[in-house]
């Protein structure tokens, strides 16, 4: 084992055990996250089946092009994240930092576009509450749709913000040469988290933007 002993916390016997524990820990956490989003998806599925037409009409008020673009941005960020993890495994510091930075930039682009979309919804009076205005007969289901839209994308965006903060810390650590070919578990489990947040969006996008579109 060439790993420096300072990287192994006192409760672990060796680096192998530490790495296995950290990875399992992240997977368990992602299971928890799945259950959390699962509650929202359950609500969505129930209401979608109750108010199919209203939800379809409301989803027409979302810009599928913007959503698709954001999807591409996120997929791109998963790629750069994967590259960062690969570089970390090879012990390539510059590549790790570059990959992480690119991921952060793409994450911020996604959040910027999301903010623009939210702003637009505000102007169109599509934010549920006393100022909600929706022409036509499907106003009530549409308000329900937008309640779920903001809850689901809002929770997702919150995860993105946390993800960007985590990546920022990892970039800082990578730049300070804290990782090596032997010790890069934080980058790996940071990557797991980032991919998970991506996958959630891969489900959100078709459910909210595409399903029933006409």
């Amino acid at each position: 084992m060439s790993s420096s002993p300072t990287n192994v916390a006192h409760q672990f016997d060796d680096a192998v055990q530490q790495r296995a524990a950290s990875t399992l820990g992240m997977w368990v956490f992602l299971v928890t996250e799945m259950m959390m989003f699962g509650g929202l998806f359950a609500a969505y599925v129930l209401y979608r089946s109750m108010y199919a037409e209203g939800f379809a009409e409301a989803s027409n008020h979302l810009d599928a092009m913007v959503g698709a673009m954001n999807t591409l941005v996120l997929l791109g960020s998963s790629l750069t994240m994967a590259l960062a993890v690969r570089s970390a495994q090879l012990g390539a510091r510059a590549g790790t930092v570059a990959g992480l930075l690119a991921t952060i930039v793409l994450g911020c682009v996604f959040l910027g576009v999301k903010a623009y979309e939210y702003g637009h919804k505000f102007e169109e009076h599509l934010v549920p509450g006393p100022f909600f205005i929706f022409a036509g007969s499907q106003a009530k289901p549409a308000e329900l749709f937008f309640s779920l839209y903001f809850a689901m994308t809002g929770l997702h965006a919150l995860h993105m913000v946390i993800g960007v903060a985590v990546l920022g810390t990892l970039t800082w650590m990578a730049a300070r040469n804290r990782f090596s070919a032997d010790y890069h578990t934080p980058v790996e489990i940071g990557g797991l988290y980032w991919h998970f947040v991506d996958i959630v969006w891969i489900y959100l996008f078709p459910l909210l933007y595409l399903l029933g579109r006409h």
Partner: protein
Amino acid sequence: MEANETPTHYLNADYGLKSWLLTRDHKRIAILYLISITLMFLLGSFFAVLIRLELLTPQGDLVQADTYNKLFTMHGIVMIFFFLVPSIPAVFGNFLLPLMIGARDLAFPRLNLLSWYVYVVGAAFTLWAVLTGGVDTGWTFYTPYSTTASHTKVLTTAIGIFITGFSSILTGLNFIVTIHKMRAPGLTWFRLPLFVWAHYATSLIMILGTPVIAITIFLVGIERAFQLGIFDPALGGDPILFQHLFWFYSHPAVYIMILPSMGVVSEVITCFSRKRIFGYEFVAISSLAIALFGFLVWGHHMFTSTQSVYAALIFSILSFAVAIPSAVKVFNWTATLYRGSISFEAPMLFALGFIGLFTIGGLTGLFLAALGLDVHVHDTYFVVAHFHYIMVGGALMGYLGAVHFWWPKMTGRMYSEWAARVSAVLVFVGFNLTFFPQFVLGYLGMPRRYHAYPDEFQVLNVMSTTGASILGIGYLVPLCYLTWSLWRGAAATANPWRAAGLEWQVPSPPPTENFEQTPIVTEEAYTYPLKEAEVV
């Protein structure tokens, strides 16, 4: 053994507030939790005292209706989310898991400390809600009452519960990884103490169920804060959906509270019978079965909620099924006594009390699973009595058993044995006198959460309040003699009960690193007689 007069252990390894607030030692974090949940227990008990005093008379003359509604709500919230859910896992699980599996600490000590801070922040929000006027929705937060009708501090409380949920999730995550990855050489799954099995099952529920209550409470919060309409019938939302999401967590949450107690009882009964548990595999696997089935029965809280008849039938049959693994445990504990060498120190009295009260609680659970009968007793005092038999008669008896069993290990001091026995008897008698009359009240039809009630229910309510005062004394007595023991108690040996188990092979209190050398396990759990070296 070192020859020093006072060997270094986790309590005297370092001094000062900072050494506690920044500790990553699982044993110190356990003590932090012990202090916090004891304070929350006292607060919850204070609400219970006022509730019982109010119910002495039928008229509702001690406090206003609004105050009464806040009292039972806050009693439930404080006791469930801030006492029972963290009680055994966060205190004894934290303290004992690494010791029982031969590890130096949990897998993620910093996360462990974080979970305590998260708990404290959540508790602070809830206390803030209590101090600024309280909340009156019932601990169940049923919509649309909680989202549109209540004028109390629902949002602050919801934030508090949401945050505290993460403390539970972090604890569960830590335990799962620790049990999977940190076991000592030779400690195979089927050599684990049953306390560890119980905590493994509990942790599964914590990581699978808690996020769902978190998101549900989050939706209630944003619905109030931003007037979204996810459960609002005026927008076509479905208030029954809330109940489904709520009980998806909150039924398994009952098992978060009871499973660790079952683990404690398995440890205590084997120790004071000085023999192996009867049917080890069945007791171990039944914990997992309870955790699994526990996720499939939530609809039995909703038999009168207008859910479909077919859903009700399925939830009913599954609810009967979940009773079986609990019954298996009770039978195995009883059989463990057979040909034992039984002594009756205080922890054993609490464990035997647990068996009695949990059996009554479990059997009356069958009444609630039976559809035609549940319609009548649903939302009456029958339900109140039933879940107190499980959560107080079961979970809290187990907790007290754990306190008495591992107190010498945690503090290095012995408490007064006779005082502890008196307390065990007081709790058992007081508990039954408090809650048994409530079964009768429930079948008579007295609805729960009633501030005032018809006259003919008074006699039974007076009995209940009388019992509660005995129960209250039963809880206060340990607070006195345990605190007393910290200064005046005799020094405890490493293994005062002559129990099997790795935690008894280290000194009392254990050193910071737990084991000088990682132990190697060669035997099954609960192997008596102990080898000479283990009888310290």
